[in-house]
């Protein structure tokens, strides 16, 4: 049973991790995209639709990433090229995504979808206790872990990562040094869109392989909050996402065991626990200041 619980925890954490990791890169480049929920739900409906039509879950996953990217390009064009307000644009992206997805998805309702199956490596998956846990997750779960390692390495160990962070910290100085601020931000926004699209596809292809309107149910907002509370550090985002997943699943099990703890309190535990732990991790204010992208949410007009 313990093994089964750990597997469900990974399922609960993965969509949050995917979406947060994308948003982390976006915010590190100095752009605040509040449209995560909208891009995610577009990914969910695309993933479901393409997979159902072609019968291939992987095609659904790719299509979701592409649609997420296209959707984020819309945000990029408005905020980076036309310099609209990022907060307002992000919010409208979410509203647009929720509405558009329910329109597109109308004919998908009530249809059982295609599932992206878990890995099954002969012998390894059969190892007692840890086999299924380590070798038998769904592929996107491994991708999300690799993504965390990759983003961490990219941001703090590569020149390109340093450039991206410099754009997020002081776009005027970066511009003066000849760094193409807008182009880098576009790329970051697109990466964020692709990740959010993947997170959405995870919901409709792995978590519950069906299309349900509003099926993200606020997970995009949780992903956004995770990035901030994890003070823009990839491994902390991972810790936060898994903690959130663990407490979410744990509280359901506590209820089923019948300990008699009020379920309303238990339902709020994932939020409380995640915030408290991440705030404690990030309690060093000087380090947190250093990690906060100083230009976050500020518009950049090159000739100013």
């Amino acid at each position, binding site marked *: 049973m313990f093994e089964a619980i750990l597997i469900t925890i990974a399922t609960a954490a993965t969509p949050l991790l995917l979406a947060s990791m994308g948003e982390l890169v976006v915010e590190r480049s100095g752009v605040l995209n509040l449209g995560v929920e909208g891009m995610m739900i577009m990914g969910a409906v695309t993933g479901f639709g393409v997979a159902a039509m072609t019968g291939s879950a992987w095609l659904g996953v790719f299509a979701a990433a592409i649609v997420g990217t296209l959707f984020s390009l819309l945000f990029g064009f408005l905020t980076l090229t036309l310099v609209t307000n990022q907060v307002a644009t992000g919010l409208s992206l979410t509203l647009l995504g929720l509405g558009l997805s329910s329109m597109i998805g109308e004919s998908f309702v009530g249809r059982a979808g295609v599932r992206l199956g878990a890995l099954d490596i002969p012998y390894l998956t059969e190892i007692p206790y840890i086999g299924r846990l380590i070798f038998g997750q769904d592929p996107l779960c491994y991708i999300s872990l690799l993504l965390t390692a990759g983003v961490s390495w990219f941001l703090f160990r590569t020149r390109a990562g340093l450039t991206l962070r410099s754009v997020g910290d002081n776009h005027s100085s970066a511009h003066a040094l000849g760094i193409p601020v807008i182009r880098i931000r576009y790329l970051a926004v697109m990466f964020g869109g692709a990740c959010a699209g993947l997170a959405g596809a995870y919901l409709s292809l792995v*978590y519950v392989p069906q299309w349900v*309107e509003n099926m993200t149910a606020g997970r995009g907002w949780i992903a956004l909050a995770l990035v901030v509370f994890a003070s823009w550090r990839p491994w902390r985002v991972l810790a936060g996402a898994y903690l959130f997943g663990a407490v979410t699943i744990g509280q359901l099990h506590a209820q089923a065991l019948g300990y008699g703890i009020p379920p*309303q309190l238990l339902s709020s535990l994932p939020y409380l626990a995640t915030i408290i732990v991440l705030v404690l991790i990030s309690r060093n204010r000087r380090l947190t200041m250093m990690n906060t992208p100083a230009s976050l949410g500020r518009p950049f007009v090159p000739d100013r």
Partner: protein
Amino acid sequence: MKRILAALAASAVLAVPGAALAQDKVKACFVYVGPKTDGGWTEAHDKGRLFVEEQLGDKVETAFVENVAEGPDAQRAIERFARADCDIVFTTSFGFMDATLAVAKRFPDVKFEHATGYKTAENMATYNSRFYEGRYIQGVIAGHMSEKGEAGYVASFPIPEVVMGINAFMLGAQSVNPDFKLKVVWANTWHDAAREADAAKALIDQGVDIITQHTDSTAPVQVAAERGIKAFGQASDMIAFGPETQLTAIVDTWGAYYVKRIQAVIDGTWEPGAIWEGLKEGILTMAPYTNMPDDVKATAEETEAKIKSGELHPFTGPVNRQDGTPWLAEGEVADDATLLGMNFYVEGIDDKLPN
């Protein structure tokens, strides 16, 4: 620019006769708590709305708003309909009760109908379905089908309606297997597919071999199907998500009621009241009994027939409360007021009722 404005003003004037014409039709408006395509609760109401359009045709115009959160938003949505020339407004979630009442008081000319609540007014009626009758049948089936004698219940919020359903299910199961066990998990949502799936997974991981739900999405049925566990659908037939595992579903069929009430508005005979109908009247039906042996199916059909004929009331004594104190004496039948305000579990449920 001025010319455009003038043109706009002219078209607004032209539009007025059209609006007046439209008033000849009765306008029926529906406020939904979830998306109209949720595959469950709200979809059942929307099917009712479409049935109205089909039956009453030109005499009626319908409108609806989806995904209205219970709370301040609900009042705003209901009020918008009251201002938008709706003649009758159906609010289809328990949590809309106080909002509906507040708006009803301010718009005495508009008629309101609130589903599953207990507050009425001069211009506000309530209507409800005796879902517990269906849940009792599910309990009987679960009592026969569960090898471990233990079912899992994915619940939404601890309101009387849901508590009543849990009790009815349990009484049905106990009528077959007096030692039946029931685990309850509160998802604290009506509609969050992923969380409902998590709740179902948690229950299955803890060893139950039957899943039933009082939340609105098809996720629990699907999770049960993936794990090869039998399950019951809720509000709509969910057989597509568990073709080999759904035993039956309680299916809400509001259409006939909606037609009757809107026809009353057209005829000018509408009266407030509190209607609570069930299997007998057809506001509640059972999806086909599938994936069970013939004898269980026969028992289920027999139970259904007995409830329809009035021979069997699910809440008939002797029934004890959870703490062992007697509630219903031998042969005593629970009255509707107690059922509608139900805030306690019956004996045998392995959960502490949140309050």
